[in-house]
């Protein structure tokens, strides 16, 4: 005894009736961002880091309003004063009486400008180069791979120092460009990997069969999948850029006075070892910024790329 033949299956209407890849992609992307946002918000360290970062970077952006003094206001009556609440010298003063708190805040502004700009620039360059190399493959890809391999064998800091020494130190913008010129390689690598693997996917084949051109495929289908890793790499690049710029400035080959930079401030502490606040505060600020950026980067990685190997607590 058998029962009457049932009606045709009614699974997933969307899957059966959607003929355009576009519509499918759109729905997918929307829910992905939602899900990612929820994952990020649950990550307590990342949220804490984000809040802290907003406060610190906000202080930098609005330095003119937050800092009690200008960064070069000399007050020879008050040199090398220890931190105190009197006169709002929370971080003390340096050897020519400038308020250290203000200098640190302006230093934050410089650091964030350099960090963010380097990250954005290198991400853009890395994205373009990586996309072209990964998608078109062939000799272009080969050259790119050789270049990135080479950058791995060069002593990083030494090359930067050399570049900075020869191409002109002192200017914040020159340092930014030099850094960006070396950072893009790692992002390009990641992007290239993604384009290379996704190029072979079925939906790309389908799009081609439907007549989509190369640019369209790259933009519409593959690019959205790279945004996650790029955002993560870019965020972590901010931290690395800030650290490297500070090192360059500390050694005297990066940003030079009068532009305040946290690295320069720490260098000032070298000549006055007794005045611990000259070294501690700017360094602590760097540590705090980098720590927060790393937490946020970790949180973003969890949210946007959970398949990637996580190196976190």
């Amino acid at each position, binding site marked *: *005894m058998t029962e009457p033949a049932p009606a045709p*299956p009614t699974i997933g209407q969307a899957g059966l009736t959607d003929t355009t890849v576009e519509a499918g992609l759109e729905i997918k992307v929307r829910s992905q961002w939602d899900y990612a946002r929820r994952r990020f918000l649950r990550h307590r360290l990342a949220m804490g880091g984000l809040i802290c970062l907003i406060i610190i970077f906000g202080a930098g952006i609005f330095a003119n309003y937050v800092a009690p003094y200008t960064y070069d206001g000399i007050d020879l009556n008050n040199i090398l004063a220890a931190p105190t609440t009197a006169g709002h010298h929370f971080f003390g003063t340096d050897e020519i009486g400038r308020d250290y708190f203000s200098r640190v805040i302006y230093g934050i502004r410089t650091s964030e400008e350099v960090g963010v700009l380097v990250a954005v620039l290198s991400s853009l360059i890395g994205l373009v180069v990586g996309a072209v190399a990964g998608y078109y493959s062939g000799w272009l890809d080969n050259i790119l791979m050789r270049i990135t391999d080479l950058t791995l064998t060069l002593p990083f800091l030494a090359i930067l120092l050399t570049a900075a020494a020869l191409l002109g130190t002192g200017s914040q913008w020159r340092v930014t460009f030099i850094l960006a010129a070396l950072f893009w390689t790692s992002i390009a690598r990641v992007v290239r990997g993604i384009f290379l693997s996704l190029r072979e996917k079925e939906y790309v084949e389908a799009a081609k069969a439907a007549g989509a051109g190369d640019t369209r495929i790259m933009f519409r289908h593959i690019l959205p999948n790279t945004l996650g890793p790029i955002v993560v790499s870019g965020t972590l690049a901010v931290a690395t850029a800030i650290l490297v710029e500070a090192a360059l400035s500390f050694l005297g080959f990066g940003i030079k006075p009068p532009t305040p930079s946290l690295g320069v401030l720490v260098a000032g502490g070298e000549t006055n070892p007794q005045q611990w606040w000259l070294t501690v505060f700017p360094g602590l600020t760097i540590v705090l910024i980098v720590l927060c950026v790393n937490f946020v980067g970790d949180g973003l990685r969890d949210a946007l790329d959970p398949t990637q190997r996580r190196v976190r607590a």
Partner: protein
Amino acid sequence: MPDPILSIRDLVVEFKTDDGIVHAVDDISYDVYPGETLGIVGESGSGKSVSTLSILGLIPQPPGRIAGGTAMFKGRDLIKMKKKELQHFRGDEVAMIFQDPMTSLNPVLKVGFQLSEAIHTHYPKEPMDTVKARVIELLRLVGVPNPDTRYEAYPHEFSGGMRQRAMIAMAIANSPSLLIADEPSTALDVTIQAQVLEVLKTVQEATNAATILITHDLGIVAEMCERVLVMYAGKIVESGDVHTIFRSPRHPYTIGLMDSLPKLTEDEEWLRPIPGAPPSLINRPSGCSFHPRCFQSQGRLQCREEVPALRGVEGSEHLAACHFSDELIGRTSKFSAPVAGGAA
């Protein structure tokens, strides 16, 4: 009927997750008799693997937890055993074969070494030569060509089917009384699947071990097993001997499983999958877990409110957990013709 070699009673296994407690195994009880092959069938997430992994202490214990039950093996309760004691049984009296041979062997150690390790751990006094000879013999038994050279090879030099044979050899190295095969052929090509199942049969004949064969493939069950358990959402919904179950299933899920297989000898217009999706193990449906997808339930109150008990159908060894299993009398599945082959 001789005494069962393994008796599981009221086993409950839970996993603690961020979203809630996952009830992976919910109060199951079954026996395994010496020398027999018992099949456990179910979808992914039905709890079929977890039930066996948990009694061997192989589930990660921080998120996982055996919340209750006993597992009597040769008079000892595996669940109450201390870790060190359990280690004595694992690989010696009770052995396991896992699903994915590509990842189940350590890639940096030689295959021969890993097999010898299985023996040496339990019989440390045996000289290495004896152990090596036995390993080579085992490899020959499972059909690995040139076993003496293959002894020195690394896993990545083996093909998938070959690796699974080595895994089987490793499992029977100490002549276990109970063999648990967790989807041993799922990760392999169909033709290799057949070969591996042949090897499994050979090995059973050689050692006369009781075997629990976990699979989602009814075809394998028909070919290899004497008795079958059908699991759904952490519970056993039907159990009995293989002929009876295939001939007259008494649970809507079992019927649905069988109906969803395409029949080769007839024309069919539509495939008939079971509608809907397996339930979340965190928030299971009230009453019978299967009722949202059940064609027999038709929304009846009892199905929605009362969890059906596993009761004997017509008082026999054939058990089914459905309030209305009587209504399924006379309803045969597609496999009303005698099952070909069957288990020895």
